[in-house]
């Protein structure tokens, strides 16, 4: 059933803004648009969160237009220009031990970072959501077994587990993505289960069940939407952790393989001469720091916006 059509008070002011801030939405789509717009306004008001949003937005733009922004090919070597200091003409952030332009490598590296974050941020929550809602909805021994599984994965040190997985399946970006996803899902399962427990006995769930809906239909169609907001906040806050884990794996030589311009691996390469040519290790670290700060600022702001407890006080 769609929402009952509400007679829209034809707004006195015409235009998009009025339509977006209407308090009597005419359709489901309209209601969603209004909600999004109000959320956007709140985000805009929260300066720090907005800054975070800007950082992430820029990252996406940089990744998309990398070939236009980069001054050289990311892997173009020029041994006559090894280890040039930042600011040398043509090399804004200096060059590395093979004479590659660090700025261009960072620009291309944003693609790798986004790829890893994007895939993990999609697979881990979906898997966690599935496990958590099924456990919470079915209860009983299914719940017991699944939650024990969650406990087991939570008891592992995250990085060590990821390390072990990568070591077992071989180093590379794909392995890093799989390993991080495998270590990132348990918290989502916990959250989703807690949410499910509070809604599984709601009247509307009983109503759907009485209409003959199957278990998966109820879980995916009627429980998932209600778990989404807390999951989304958690995902945004986790993104920084995902970036840091990916960088850590890269740093240990288990993530993206050379000559890929992965930020963590770049730090690892620069580590050898950090005392003399600090910029080779410092610059990629700054990039990682700025991007994860962006995700943290955004996540922090989103929590304030989406957390109903907070907005009441």
């Amino acid at each position, binding site marked *: 059933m769609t929402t009952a059509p509400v007679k829209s008070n034809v707004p006195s002011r015409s235009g998009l803004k009025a339509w977006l801030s209407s308090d009597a939405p005419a359709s489901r789509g309209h209601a969603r648009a209004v909600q999004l717009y109000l959320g956007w306004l709140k985000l805009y008001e929260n300066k*720090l969160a907005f800054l975070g949003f800007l950082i992430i937005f820029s990252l996406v733009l940089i990744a998309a237009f990398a070939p236009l922004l980069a001054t050289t090919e990311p892997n173009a070597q020029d041994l006559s220009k090894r280890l040039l200091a930042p600011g040398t003409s043509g090399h804004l952030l200096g060059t590395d031990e093979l004479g590659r332009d660090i700025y261009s490598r960072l620009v291309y590296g944003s693609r790798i970072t986004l790829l890893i974050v994007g895939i993990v941020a999609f697979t881990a929550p979906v898997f966690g959501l599935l496990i958590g809602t099924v456990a919470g909805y079915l209860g009983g021994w299914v719940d017991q077994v699944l939650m*024990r*599984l969650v*406990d*087991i*994965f939570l*008891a*592992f*040190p*995250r*990085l*060590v*587990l990821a*390390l*072990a*997985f990568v*070591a*077992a*399946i*071989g180093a590379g970006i794909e392995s890093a993505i799989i390993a991080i996803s495998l270590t990132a899902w348990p918290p989502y399962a916990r959250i989703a289960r807690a949410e499910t427990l509070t809604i599984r006995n709601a009247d509307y769930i009983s109503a759907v069940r009485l209409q003959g809906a199957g278990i998966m239909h109820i879980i995916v169609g009627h429980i998932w939407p209600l778990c989404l907001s807390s999951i989304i906040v958690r995902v945004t806050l986790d993104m*920084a*952790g995902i970036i*840091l884990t990916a*960088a*850590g794996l890269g*740093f*240990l030589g288990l993530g993206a393989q050379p000559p890929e311009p992965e930020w*963590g691996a770049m*730090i690892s390469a620069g*580590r050898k001469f*950090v*005392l003399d040519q*600090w910029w080779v*290790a*410092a610059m*990629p*670290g700054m990039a*990682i*720091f700025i991007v*994860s*700060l962006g*995700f*943290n*600022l955004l996540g*922090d702001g989103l929590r304030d916006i989406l957390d109903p407890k907070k907005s009441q*006080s």
Partner: protein
Amino acid sequence: MSIADSTATVARRGVSSPLYKVLKGLIAGLFSVAITMVGLLFVTFIIARVMPVDPVLSVVGERATQEIYDAAYKAMGLDQPLYVQFWLFLKQVAVGDFGMSTLTARPVVEDIARVFPATLELATLATIAGVGIGVPMGVLAAVNEGRWPDQLIRLVGLFGYSMPIFWFGLMGLLIFYGILGWVGGPGRIEIYYEDIIPSVTGMILIDSLLEGDFTIFWNAVSHIILPASILGYYSIAYISRMTRSFMLEQFSQEYITTARVKGVSETAVIWRHALPNVMIPLITVIALSYANLLEGSVLTEIIFSWPGLGNYITNALLSADMNAVMGGTVVVGAVFVGLNLFSDFMYKVVDPRAR
């Protein structure tokens, strides 16, 4: 009244006594811990078996003849089905035997006993910093909610969450060791001081004090201060954030309003009324942060060449020393589970409502 009836009464009375409930919770907790540990062992075992490394080759070497290879293969039980192998592995672990490390050629248990104190030393110092600085910071932020101290502390915390720890450590080394020369370089102690003092606890800071050797003590301090501060920063970020949110929760309670209306001074409201109530959930947070430091210092240990557990496990992984990896992972998991159980228990001891 029959005997059965009276035992039932006693039992019923027993059920209602708080101590009994705590014990019952503890036993249930231990049971779930046992299951978690077996699961942990199972996952580790499977990973070790999936590893594309031939465990036999790492024992007999690449030039062994086929007969030697086959004999070793049999001796290691690799011809048995997986579940038998797992059972043998469980039996070994139960008596504290993780086998020999192929990397160090010593029993894994000995290796872990040697490296664990180094990690413990680091994590303990970081946690002390986290509690000593993080809790007051969190209180300060909560008291000034929304004003500049709160924003500042929030930013400090977010910076901590966003910094890649290996990079942070590297930059710390560059600035404080390379440029300023204020602290010692990587490692626990200068190489010429090594193995002079007898190892009692394995923690150099304590051992050197026990010996009364202050030269070594100060040398160890100069080496541990940077990695401990860097780990401590993360601990501070986490603990201050949690303290802030717990304090804010208390401030919205009516008993605080009552105290204020009665004219209790703000200082007393904060430190005598709100903070003790916050200490209860805070125990869990601190235990969790401690556990994370014990296991999560892998990258810091590598940057600082710190001979701790994280370094040990990583080196073992990179050289496919599976016994060492399994042993290390199991110890880490056990520490984590143990601390969780401990904080659950503390929670129940401190907070009567949780019984």
